[in-house]
């Protein structure tokens, strides 16, 4: 049990690490097992996938399933839409949520508590509830089938405001006070001093927004009626048939859709780690 132990200054004995590796490795295997199976499905034939009992390994590896994805759906254009809406959402959320989060954490104004409570309570409402009213708003803005239409409601995030507020609350007063003495206005204090200090929070918000935006299905599905406006999540859903499915193509496509995010995660891991973790504090 002592391998449960925790960061300590001195190095731990090798034997303990072995036990830790066994626990972590076993757990990791359980975690990625379904995905390994997804990989197996992606290189099998449809008959093999639907056979019962299911196959463990295909008789002939069908690498062409990955190539076939490009003929079954417009992967390239969907990827472009996904990247575009994700970038716009991330930038939009980071700007809006950090501004608002800062105000709620560090400024004083009438109705602060009430407005924050209102925003927080919106964090909790499942998306299905808003579908028709939000659609009608987008329609009256004339944004159906457009990138702004897909992106607009998702730029405003109660979660993001909450997250950024938590971050700004954790920062010390001193720098802010000093800047105020020097005659800086609140906007200058925010951009020059406080925002850089909350970089971890910004990264956390960014990666979570990337994930939500990338996998968001229902809203873009309803808003985008043309192929050129459909992101990957929608393109992927459209691969499913009514009665029969081409599972290998679906699995191959979903692996391909996941890949960019995985690469991004690995590349940003250090920043992300520090970022998301801080949001748990205060």
């Amino acid at each position, binding site marked *: 049990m002592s391998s449960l132990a925790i960061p300590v200054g001195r190095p731990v004995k090798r034997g303990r690490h072995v036990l830790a590796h066994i626990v972590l490795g076993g757990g990791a295997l359980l975690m990625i097992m379904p995905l390994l199976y997804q990989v197996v499905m992606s290189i099998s034939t449809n008959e093999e996938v639907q056979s019962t009992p299911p196959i463990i390994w295909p008789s002939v590896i069908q690498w062409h399933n990955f190539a076939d994805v490009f003929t079954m759906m417009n992967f390239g254009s969907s990827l472009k839409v996904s990247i575009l809406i994700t970038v716009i959402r991330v930038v939009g959320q980071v700007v809006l949520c950090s501004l608002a989060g800062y105000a709620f954490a560090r400024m004083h104004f009438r109705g602060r508590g009430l407005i924050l409570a209102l925003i927080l309570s919106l964090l909790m409402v499942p998306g299905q509830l808003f579908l028709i009213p939000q*659609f009608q708003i987008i329609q009256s803005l004339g944004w159906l089938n457009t990138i702004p239409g897909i992106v607009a409601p998702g730029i405003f995030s109660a979660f993001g405001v909450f997250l950024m507020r938590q971050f700004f609350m954790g920062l010390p007063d001193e720098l802010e006070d000093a800047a105020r003495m020097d005659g800086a206005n609140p906007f200058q204090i925010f951009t020059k001093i406080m925002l850089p200090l909350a970089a971890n929070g910004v990264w956390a918000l960014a990666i979570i927004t990337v994930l939500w935006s990338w996998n968001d299905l229902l809203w873009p599905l309803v808003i985008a009626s043309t192929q050129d406006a459909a992101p990957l999540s929608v393109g992927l859903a459209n691969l499913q048939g009514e009665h029969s499915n081409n599972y290998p193509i679906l699995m191959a496509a979903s692996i391909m859709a996941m890949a960019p995010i995985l690469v991004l995660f690995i590349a940003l891991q250090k920043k992300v780690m520090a970022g998301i973790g801080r949001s748990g504090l205060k």
Partner: protein
Amino acid sequence: MTNLNRRTFLSVAALATATATLAACGNNGTPGSGAAAGDYAAPPKDISAELTYAIWGAAQKPFLQESIDEFNKEYPNIKISIDVTPSKGGAYWTKIQTLASSNTLPDVFWMNGPKIKLYAQNDQLLPLDGIVAAKAVDLANYPQGLVDLYTVDGKVYGIPKDYDSSAIFYSKSLVAAAGVPEPTADWTWEDLKKHSVELSKFYEGKGIHGVTADLTGGQTSYYNTILGAGGVVITKDGKKSGYDSPEAIEGVQFWRDLIEAGASPSMQQITETYSADLFRSGKAAITMEASYEAGATFEAMGDDVKVVPLPKGPVSNQSVIHGLANVIPANSKNPDAARAFVAFLAGKKAAELQSASGQVISAFKGTQQAWVDALPGMGAQAFLDAAESASPYPASKNSGAWGKYEQDLLPPAFAGTKPVADSAKELATKMNEALAQEA
């Protein structure tokens, strides 16, 4: 007639019994003037419009695109883009309903049996009698059951595109190895019961059952046996549930008996593994299944799979027929272009392209041979024969309301946790409440 403005025409139409007859008196004037009223004449070839065609079957997109290309030879300036939304998880209907609530329905879209009355009776759809009256479409070309399905309050709202009917599939090798006679067109319910029990006995311990069917929905299973026992799911006027009749109860009981006798996999097994997959993987020797599974099953089993008509129940061996139709929204911005396109899709050329794809059976009579030919030696003609005498898919104005009750209340009956008669009566009560709400 073109001299009449729309309001005058509507008041005339209100008095007249047959709008279609009026509309048929010819229209040489500007296109679109009488669309809402129902008259139609093929628009000039140079008419230009941009249409969206919303569908849910991604697999059908290729041949539909071919149809559009053909259509464009005639109408080069009508641009049509296909919008696919999956029906899985209800996405297609969630989207269509949202679009309808905002008056932005696609120019032409797929409709199904359970939803047609909901959209037609809530004034969401354009009546298509004008196309029929103008002889651009002849309804005699489609199975009567389908035409009835899409005729609401005496008006045609959808032109049938394709259909599916049900039949018996069996594996020659599994049946032969067990020494059981092969199913024939003359089989009765009793034959099916008796021989599937024998099959299950023979294959005991091997995880192979005599017969299976999809009991998570009614179309390929209990809807057919309710008809076979002489019952109905819903009365013809769509106002009362038929589930509390002894005949309907007998039709549902049929499946419970098969499960209880061990002839069929349990309700849970069928829920967790799609019954068509069980059959294709050799886990069941016989299945009652719809024509839409014929292609995939033939591909998986080849010569081993054969098809014969449904077994005869106490009254009949009738199958339910269901099929999709192309519809146009009531407030269409391009009613003439949209109707020209629907008329083309309803025609022989588009039907042949559809049949040749082997995906679905075209609703257009005489074009289905290509589909049967794509399944050589299977006996797929049985589906076409079944369609001739088939009964329309049970539907009312708000089928979804009681469809949910079927999904919730029948599984316990099949599983044996509640007597079939009790479940059926509870279902009938709730369904009648839902139907009363429709009025």
